[in-house]
């Protein structure tokens, strides 16, 4: 009782909300901010990083946010399933991850996804390639979700012998981000497409550096915890290109103008800077009026295998 009386005397001069913030801690203060940010009729998904660990805070978030509508999500996959089946799904998540912070954070699905992606890298010890380049094409770069449980992304590593900068441009949109490289210190890029675009998207990358860099990029399937190294192209292979068939077949046009392409004699117009998927055959022979890069991919036991000219 004495302890309670002392605590009460200390709280007495404060306004009620300040007292509540003092008693319930930064978690309550953060929920006040979340509540202020939420729209009047907005449903908030309460997303837990670890159900066992975070459920208590989730329960209190449910309490303090009422009468805002709330839904619990024990994992991001639970949320993705709901997105698929319920058009009225919450658009934003109140993220509860007490291992990271005691505060509740109002985040988008993409932000939470990116955060989780960074926690558990699939490419654990990324090693840069042997060849130093100043310009290169990464033929496929993506940050997308498959069926719940699957997520695809691109990881990379850059290493320069000199201090330099590397600009990564994501196409077809042309958004770019420049990274500083310190001499002989590898720069590991996780979920690089999201880092550049802040959204889920698929395309390809151009790497432009102020000094020669050795680099590697990987196509990562998080669901299977599987990564495939992608080749880097300083220039596109000579035409005609012969590509072994797969389940999917793409033509990458790195030019500023439309490329008129023929695949096994069938004409196609490939938009500037686009990565266009076309029907795949057992063997695909590609001719074009400009430089292009053709490649295919097939999946065996869920694992991706790429074929390049």
């Amino acid at each position, binding site marked *: 009782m004495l302890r309670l009386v002392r605590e009460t005397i200390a709280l*007495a001069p404060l306004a009620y909300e300040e007292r509540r913030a003092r008693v319930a801690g930064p978690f309550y203060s953060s929920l006040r901010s979340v509540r202020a940010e939420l729209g009047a009729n907005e449903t908030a998904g309460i997303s837990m990083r670890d159900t066992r660990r975070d459920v*208590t805070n989730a329960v209190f978030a449910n309490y303090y946010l009422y009468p805002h509508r709330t839904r619990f999500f024990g994992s991001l996959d639970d949320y993705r399933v709901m997105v698929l089946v319920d058009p009225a799904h919450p658009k934003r998540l109140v993220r509860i991850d007490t291992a990271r912070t005691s505060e509740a954070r109002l985040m988008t699905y993409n932000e939470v996804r990116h955060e989780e992606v960074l926690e558990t890298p699939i490419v654990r010890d990324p090693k840069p390639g042997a060849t130093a380049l100043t310009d290169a094409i990464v033929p496929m770069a993506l940050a997308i979700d498959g069926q719940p449980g699957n997520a695809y992304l691109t990881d990379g590593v850059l290493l320069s012998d000199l201090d330099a900068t590397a600009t990564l441009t994501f196409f077809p949109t042309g958004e770019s981000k420049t990274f500083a490289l310190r001499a002989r210190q590898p720069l590991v890029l996780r979920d690089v497409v999201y880092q550049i675009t802040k959204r889920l998207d698929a395309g390809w990358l151009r790497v432009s550096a102020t000094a020669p860099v050795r680099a590697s990029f990987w196509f990562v399937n998080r669901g299977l915890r599987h990564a495939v190294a992608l080749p880097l192209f300083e220039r596109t292979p000579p035409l005609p290109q012969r590509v072994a068939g797969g389940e999917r077949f793409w033509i990458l046009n790195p030019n500023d103008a439309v490329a008129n392409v023929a695949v096994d004699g069938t004409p196609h117009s490939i938009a500037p800077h686009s990565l266009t998927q076309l029907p795949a055959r057992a063997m695909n022979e590609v001719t074009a009026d400009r430089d292009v890069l053709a490649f295919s991919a097939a999946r065996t036991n869920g694992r991706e295998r790429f074929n390049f000219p």
Partner: protein
Amino acid sequence: MTGLLFTLVWFPLIGAAVSRLAGRMNWFLAGAGMNGLALFIAGVLHIPLHAVLFVLGVAALVIVVAKLELPARPTLKPADAAIAISIVLLLAISAIKPLDDYDGRAFWLLKAKAIAHEARIDGPFFHGETAVTPRNEYPLLVPLDAATVMIAARDLDERHVRWLYALFAIALAWEVRRHAGPWLGALTLWLPQIAVSDAGGALTAYADIALAAFITCAVFELASESPGALRTGLWLSFIVLTKNEGLPFAVVLLGVSVSRLRARAILAATPLGIAAAALFLWRTRIDPTDEARFTLSALPERLDRLGDALLIFARHAVAFPDWGLFWIAVFAAGAFLAWQRRWRPLLIGAATIVPMIAIYLIMFVVSDWNTADLVNSTAPRLLTHFIGPAMLLLGHASREND
């Protein structure tokens, strides 16, 4: 402050009216019980809660004003200074310190907010459409009382209802004082489990003290010289609607009432039957969520756990930080009454405590929870439910004769 003023006026007003009709009852507890009972039945019948509150208020005012009869002013005793100090402390702490317990926020007050917001007890919230609804089938008497205060304050903030829970404890102590003496009344509010526990104490928003208060009223009613059937029935109906444990408690007390009320026990069973029927009907309309699971059929194979459960439960009863020497004194009082052959209080006390402890022990054993974890996490506050019969034994043992 609106919440305090409303709580101090509304529930005693309703209780005074009930007292006027049914005979002398604790105003606050009778008011809180009748308010919850009326709103719950109205909710089950889909009568708008705001209209029920209006009618309840007007009717109570008419009944009270028609024949204003204040209870006799109690003669103050030295022990009342101890009660006064604890009342001041409990109200001051309730006024200043925001709620920080688990069940109060996670379950009970969330329900109160939802009822106040939706003005329904089977609306979207109770179907899981607007928020997560843990323990969806918990009885709603106390949340309905809290919702009443929120409706009056036009605000869902918990700050308006903090007093309600402290006042349940104060009313409990007052009832003990009236029947068992001032020192035992004072002791009620100084027992650590009631005064300061953050799991079921007077400064939390749990419903255990409210349940204990209603049980206490029923026990003292049955132990009185001329127990009233209607009053007993009303207390039993409040007990059923306060917590899940209330139903077995009410059945046990109804059994006790047969020996005291004889045929009039049927009258006592009527409000209880209505409340229980309303509770079951309401539960058919909502979905269970994460309610505790009990597998009674598993009892024969888990009987070996009974001894452990009893031992842990007994250990909590004598745990000094929670209960001091209280339960040892109660046991001694029971032995003393037996030695003195003062059977009536002993039988009423024992007939309430023994079967309910047996039921709690069986529930511990057949629960899907780990038995030891369950006993450890609930025993201190479950013991609160027995405070009424315990005070009955202590009160009688401390008198020279009955």
